[in-house]
């Protein structure tokens, strides 16, 4: 009994390591042991997934405990499949993760997290207005993303990837963002609509 338990305890990290290694190999990202530094988009892909752990959606968002948490990518996928590797087999609060790549015609409200790619620059304002009251965590990269009503914008300084959060937008979308996440973020608000227009 004890031996079996020990064996299982020892086996788990090994299995995990094997799974990760196989995943990385399959995605074509061969990372050497000496240099574990990830690319900017790999980091962003990981962040995108991890936001799910610090955000609480309204109670009526999920139909049941097994309903998937959908991460949508509007436009071109800048992560090159990294998001699929990271989220494969993962669950957040019991919800399996489903990554969807969405075209111009797809409904965006069904996502819980929506990454708006740089390719959708022209549609950006429209998308954000459409989703301004929907419980969707919008994530983007453009400098004016948050100002336009997006919830989280990736930032980047010399060393690391960071983010800013528009707390007004989050509130409008009825998203509750953990204070732990907020404490890491640069907090912004949406300027009053009458002033922007």
């Amino acid at each position, binding site marked *: 009994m004890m031996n079996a338990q020990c064996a299982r305890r020892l086996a788990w990290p090994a299995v995990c390591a094997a799974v990760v290694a196989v995943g990385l190999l399959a995605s074509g990202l061969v990372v050497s042991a000496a240099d574990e530094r990830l690319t900017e988009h790999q980091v962003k892909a990981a962040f995108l997934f*991890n936001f799910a*752990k*610090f955000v609480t959606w309204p109670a009526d968002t999920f139909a049941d405990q097994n309903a998937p948490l959908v991460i949508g990518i509007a436009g071109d996928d800048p992560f090159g499949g990294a998001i699929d590797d990271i989220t494969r087999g993962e669950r957040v609060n019991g919800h399996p993760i489903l990554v969807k790549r969405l075209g111009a015609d797809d409904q965006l409200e069904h996502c819980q997290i929506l990454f708006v790619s740089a390719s959708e620059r022209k549609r950006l304002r429209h998308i954000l207005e459409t989703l301004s009251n929907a419980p969707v965590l919008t994530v983007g990269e453009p400098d004016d993303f948050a100002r336009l009503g997006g919830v989280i914008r990736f930032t980047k300084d010399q060393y690391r990837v*960071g983010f800013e959060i528009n707390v007004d937008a989050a509130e409008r979308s009825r998203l509750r963002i953990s204070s*732990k*996440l907020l*404490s*890491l973020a640069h907090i912004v608000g949406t300027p009053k609509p009458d002033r922007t227009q």
Partner: protein
Amino acid sequence: MISSLRNASLRQKLTAIVMMTSVVALIVAGLSFAMYDRLTFRDGLVKDRTTLADLVGANSTAALTFQDQASAREILSALRANQHVTRAAIYDAKGAPFAAYSRPGDPPSTPPSAEPEGAGFTGSRLAVFRNVVLDGKPIGTVYIESDLEELGSRMNRYIAMVLVVVIVAAFVALLLLSQLQGIISRPILDVMRTAKRVSETKDYSVRARKYGEDEIGTLVDAFNEMLDRVHERDQQVRTARDAAETANRAKSAFLANMSHELRTPLNGIIGYAEMLSEEAGDRGREDVVPDLMRIQSAGRHLLAIINDILDLSKIEAGRMELHIERFQLRRLIDDVVSTIQPLVAQNENTLEVTLARGVGDVELTTDSIKLRQSLWNLLSNACKFTTRGEVSLTIALEPAAEGDTIVFTVADTGIGMTDEHVGRLFQEFMQADSSTTRKYGGTGLGLAISRRYCRQMGGDITVQSRPGVGSILTLRLPATARRPALAMALSEAV
């Protein structure tokens, strides 16, 4: 310690026993509580630091997830609030250090490598490792290291408390003891004082006071009952002694009076017998002279007996006094030898007197009359029990530092005595055999009186004898009668 208590007073013993017991009990109890408290406190400390580590872990989930080391360091820096946290660190999922903290003022040090969850005391440190879990998955580890100064200072305070409690309790115990020890010591001391008083004053009417119905009460009862008996017995003895003394005095007085009363008519009988024998010679009635001489001789014998009885009664009554004087030994010997000659001749014995060299010139300081009488008694005894034999008197001087001793030895070749007879020799009215009284005459008082005289003068008479061979009687006497010997002899005489 216990042996040194043996001669301490009851009070001190009680105090020592109670104090020792209570102080030891208090110290043992105090130290036990201290040990228990130490264990409890250690457990509490582990729990506290584990909670702290969990708190830090929960706060740093976002920082770990989003690789924000600055934020993690900020979270750790909040540990400044607890000055006992010496070091802390956060590790990522792979165990690599992510953020570290050292207590302000301490030299910065690299945290140890990550370990599985757990807590352990190492020397003066408590090290706690806790996993950081997010959404059911471990995403890192928190390490918190604390010093044990809290524990140390708590123990110090505890021990100081125990000491204060012990001292205060000992003081209170001492106060209580000084009030309460009387319950045990007072009755015992009372019995002791009573016993002391009884033995000092010989007053058997005092009684020990009884304080209660305990073992000491029983002791007091038994003691008092014993005193009752002793008192009763003492009074009986006193009464008996008084009666005996009275009777003895009456006897001595009676003897003295009777001797006197007897002597008066006896002197008359002897005197007239003498006159008659002289008158009979003058008138030519020679035939009655021997009979008159027998009356005379019997009268003198009776007078000697009465004198002996008188002497004895004086000795018994303690009225015999010594008349110490200084005289020459030779004159005394000449006197005794000349007066004993008729007795020597009576049984056709020969008397040989031997004086050691220089003894004749010795001067004695003692009662010459009593010494003469004693010597005369010894010689007359020897002559009386020897027929056609030899009687010898040898006189020698034994020099000694505390005073010379003069030794008279009277030896005869007479009938001698058995050991049984020797044992009874010096008892009053006892001759070696009651049949001898009839055969040889005499009162049997001579030797007894002689020995009493000698003892009174600080000397003694001893005897050696073999039946049919003869007897040797030895009279030893200090050349100078000593006062202590005198006192002793007097007390014995009484």
